[in-house]
């Protein structure tokens, strides 16, 4: 069946290059999420795969065909839009069957496919309604139904849950995941929400400025981000950063110090870092623990007690502010001095170019 290959894909609008040589390989049946901040090119990349944007350079291969010049309808793809893009003047039945009607599918075959899609998405009772008579979640389902009925090799989702309220988003997220399992289809999903990315993806592609920052499984990206951008993007709340210098290197531990931290040990194989190197230390809020003799000392700013955890805003000597998510309920007072520690294996170091100093 079909996988996808993106080979050095480029896209320029006039002189402005927005996609700068993307290489990616997607296996059949994978759920791939393109994630990144606004303007990073993820939607553009998706549209290039769909055929809605021309490809300026490189090759796009779907299955075993180079499809750069192939029309969208012949690429074996189906797309679900952020705004659903349902045809307002047609009923749900006609919306879902529009593509089949254009392909001159016989009426009985068409009817059977539409009803099958409706059954999968539990929207048989909606077939005679018009889009204006549906709720947001129902419209989204019709949009998905329209995609399913095409029996594509690749499903493309362009921020499909952005227009839904929070509760509905969680429900639809689970439905999409279930759909992926049921249909065993390749799905490419674009979102700016990293929680959606982490929960849905087999593979996440992090994009920034038209360049792929990192590709990997969600946990891979969480534990071993390749650079500062990925480290700061994945994980909520955001990772804390501070500029440090490498002090002492002994065996597989590097001690780093900076204006705000003194002697924080970081587990790293020998030879990766030399004393005096300028580095950035990254620590996730969840990895900080209270330790009387901790290396990270500051003043408590804001405290949010959530019952199961406590979110503390720590003001460091240089004026920088770190966020710590501490286990359990900690009765901390504003202005109090607080010392925190981090597990050497969880702390991350990035070199002067922003790249992760590889742990292995």
């Amino acid at each position, binding site marked *: 069946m079909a996988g996808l290959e993106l080979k050095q894909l480029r896209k320029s609008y006039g002189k402005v290059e927005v996609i700068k040589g993307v290489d990616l390989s997607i296996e059949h049946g994978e759920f791939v999420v393109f994630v990144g901040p606004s303007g990073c090119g993820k939607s553009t990349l998706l549209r290039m795969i*769909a055929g809605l944007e021309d490809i300026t350079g490189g090759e796009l291969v779907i299955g075993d065909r180079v499809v750069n010049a192939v029309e*969208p*309808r012949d690429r074996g*793809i189906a797309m679900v*839009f952020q705004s659903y893009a349902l045809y*307002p003047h047609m009923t749900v039945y006609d919306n879902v069957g*529009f*593509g089949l009607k*254009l392909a001159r599918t016989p009426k009985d075959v068409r009817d059977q496919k539409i009803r099958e899609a409706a059954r999968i998405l539990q929207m048989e009772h909606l077939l005679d309604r018009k889009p204006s008579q549906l709720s947001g979640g129902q419209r989204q389902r019709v949009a998905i139904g329209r995609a399913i009925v095409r029996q594509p090799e690749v499903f493309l989702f362009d921020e499909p849950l952005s227009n839904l309220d929070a509760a509905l988003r969680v429900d639809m997220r689970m439905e999409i995941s279930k759909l992926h399992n049921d249909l065993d289809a390749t799905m490419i999903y674009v979102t700016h929400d990293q929680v959606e990315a982490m929960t849905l993806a087999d593979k996440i592609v992090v994009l920034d400025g038209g360049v792929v920052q990192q590709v990997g499984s969600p946990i891979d990206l969480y534990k071993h981000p390749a650079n500062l951008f990925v480290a700061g993007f994945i994980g909520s709340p955001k990772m804390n950063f501070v500029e440090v210098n490498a002090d002492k290197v002994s065996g597989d531990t590097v001690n780093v110090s900076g204006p705000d931290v003194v002697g924080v040990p970081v587990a790293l194989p020998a030879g990766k870092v030399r004393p005096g190197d300028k580095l950035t230390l990254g620590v996730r809020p969840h990895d900080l623990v209270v330790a009387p003799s901790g290396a990270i000392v500051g003043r408590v700013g804001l405290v949010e007690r959530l019952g199961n955890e406590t979110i503390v805003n720590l003001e460091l000597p240089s004026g920088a502010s770190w966020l710590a998510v501490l286990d359990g309920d900690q009765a901390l007072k504003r202005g109090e001095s607080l010392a925190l520690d981090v597990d050497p294996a969880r702390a991350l170091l990035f070199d002067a170019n922003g790249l992760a100093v590889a742990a292995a």
Partner: protein
Amino acid sequence: MKKRTSILGGAAAIAATFVVFVIPFIFIILMAFKDRQQSALRDFSWPTGFHFWENVVEVVKTRNWMMITAFINSSIITVVSVTLLVIFAAMVGYVLARRKTRWNGLIEFLILAGLMVPPAVVPTIWLLQGLKLFGTLHGMILIEVAYNLPFSIILYRAFVATIPRDLDEAAIIDGARPLDVFFRVVLPLLWPVTVTNIVVQSVGIFNDFTNPLYYLPGNANATVQLTLYNFQSQFSTAYNLLFTNILLITIPPLLVFMFFNRQIVAGMTAGAVKG
């Protein structure tokens, strides 16, 4: 205090509307019921007898049933012109709104020029004669389409912009070719504008007096507006027949309005197109 002013203002508006719109219509109806002598008085006197039916018969029979030919000609011109206008203007409006090319500026300039520059009659006649279209119905249709296209295009372009591009793209992914996208997705959504265009253009084209006068001479080619001249001449005018004629040719536009009126209102209150 406020209430009295608004009542007075309202009453004044009603009175003004009555004078401008209703009184002339009453006059027309009164005149259509009179005989020739009484109508020559041209006043608001009540008709002495019921001459309406004989007036109608007289009007229709004049000049070898010219009225019938005229109605047929006018109807053909109006229906075909409006159909062509709707299709072509919608197509142009669609491409102009969707595709950004460097020709857009030039095309928009030409459309505006078409709207503002009055047509030159003699060169147009010369052109029609060269194309062997002068004095033919299809020539007349082309003229009406050409003269009314700019207005229609501007109307359509504004409304196509309110249809989200997502719908086009969804249709393309579904396998629609450009004409499919236009006829199956975009044009149905432009129905309120199409209705407005049909009403405005058909009334305008049906009521058009000068263009058929210039470009469609001859008795066989008469349109309904030209039949008014049957009853007016330098020395004698049969006012009763003239006004009966006026009444008769008012009926088709009135029917168009009545038929489409509800659709126009529905179109305006239907709200924005939402995908």
